[in-house]
């Protein structure tokens, strides 16, 4: 079965502490990319970004943007390595970031 690549989630950094976060279905922000709401169409994308930007005005997060993801067996994974590093934490410091919490 082919991987679908036209999927996206919105990511940002939480303003207070800079933590990487992902926009969830209910319009909140989670540190786990797996909680990220996946957009599958242009319309959904626009909606997600509008919600994200509104949150940025409050301000809850800084500089939200869309990233490409793939979905494999129900798990969301970023396409770009850079975003994988953001999602997991710095590879050179396995004690920091999401990778430590999962480990």
């Amino acid at each position: 079965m082919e991987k679908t690549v036209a999927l996206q989630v919105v990511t940002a950094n939480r303003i207070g502490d800079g933590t990487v976060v992902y926009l969830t279905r209910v319009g909140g922000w989670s540190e786990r990319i797996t909680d990220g709401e996946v957009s599958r169409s242009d319309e959904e994308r626009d909606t997600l970004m509008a919600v994200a930007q509104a949150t940025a005005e409050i301000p809850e997060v800084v500089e939200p943007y869309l990233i490409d993801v793939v979905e494999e067996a129900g798990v969301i994974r970023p396409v770009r390595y850079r975003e994988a590093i953001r999602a997991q934490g710095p590879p050179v410091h396995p004690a920091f970031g999401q990778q430590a919490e999962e480990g």
Partner: protein
Amino acid sequence: MYRYDEYDQTLVDERVRQFRGQVARRLAGELTEDEFKPLRLMNGLYLQLHAYMLRVAIPYGLLSAVQMRKLAHIARRYDRGYGHFTTRQNIQYNWPKLEDTPDILAALASVEMHAIQTSGNSFRNTTTDQYAGVAADEIEDPRVYCEIIRQWSTLHPEFSFLPRKFKIAVTGAPNDRAAVRLHDIGLIMRRGDAGETGFEVIVGGGQGRTPFVGPTIREFLPKKHLLSYLEAIMRVYNQLGRRDNLFKARIKILVHEVGAEKITEMVEEEWRHIKDGALDLPKEEVERIRAHFAPPPYETLAAAQPAFEEKKRADGAFATWADTNVAAHKVPGYAIVNLSLKPVGGIPGDATADQMDAVADLAEHYSFGEIRVTHEQNLVLGDVRRTDLHALWRKLRDIGMATPNLGLISDIIACPGLDYCGLANARSIPVAQRISNRFADLKRQHDIGELKIKISGCINACGHHHVGHIGILGLDRKGEEYYQITLGGSADQDAAIGKIVGPAFSSEAVVDAVETVVNTYVELRQNGERFIDTYRRVGKEPFKERLYAAA
């Protein structure tokens, strides 16, 4: 070293209060990120991949033990227990919180430190020779002028919104350990015809996307004219530097586009109007600052230290370290000690809070309480008695800072790269670690000799790869990390930009490629040539041939 008076202290205290207000307004939504970003950058606070990053200024790389302890405290209290020393003699923290930053700045202010202008489009840290004040080859201590420049450039109302960042470096010795020709303005202390000291002025050096070795625009500038001349350069740049294209906004582009002669003409014309005026510092002020850099109370010691020589004979590891990491001091019986932050397989330039505290203790015990940060991401204790070297060495071994690799292949400079930096295309730290591990054997390292490898994770060149003997630039090729190798760069008085040797290497292949380059050098060298000497003699062809032979 320089100590704040009430005015200096007032400035940093007011700055903390100002930033506290700016952060509060931001968190309350009264400032947009667009409006807040330049303000936080002017206090050294970046937003990176995982978190904010705070760059703290260490003016011309000079730190007291008290200040080092505060840096350790900040690492523990507000970060994850470590810090990273940079290629501009500053320190970076990778995990501060925005909401904590005013308190961090307050903690810094309490020990006469700050993060003012460590980012943003204004003057950055003025850097210098890590052996300033103690080097045997020095004409005059450049730190006096670094401090003068630091003050003049702090919150300069005319030059806080330049086209781009602005970096100045000063050296007081003919052996340039500050890479002055690779800076927006480089100043070399020289002797004039009457024997007085002044500055050779270089403008338009730089690395990044378009590296240039800066041309000299004035062979000799008397010291009294320093600030007026700098101001003239800045006024020309502020008006004429490009503002339409971020990648063409540095002064090096302006110098390259109009030519050194024309730049000189424009600077001298502007300078004509402002010299001998309000920017001439009164003698009393220069002397007041100079007094802070008076030599410490050196003992009168013999140059020959038989006990030290005996220890070297008795202990081969100590001898290796002393021969590699210890440099000549201008005062008999003293030595300059380099503390390596490049343990085999380690992260270049990183130090834990515990290490920082230990260095502070060692500085107090052995080196009049002062520490220097080098632009090659190591530390220096500048005033150690030779008789103390063995004891110091043993303590450095205990804290992992005694790797005898200064200037050798494992003394690698690397930027944080894609592990941390939002601008990066590829990871740089693991490449440094793998190279370091590949060449872990000390005998081999010493046989190879001086070989400066510098690694950048993107074209912004914070790892200074353009001036590495071997430079490595990380690229993103269709989502894969690739590494381009340059050869023959040099950051010293024979400054040169490295040449690309051929197509980039995959992450898997790059360490083998470096080893091929090294083996080629070893094969071709003559008469005690260093790598850079052999390269200059044979050119890049032999290396290119070997690297791409299979292809």
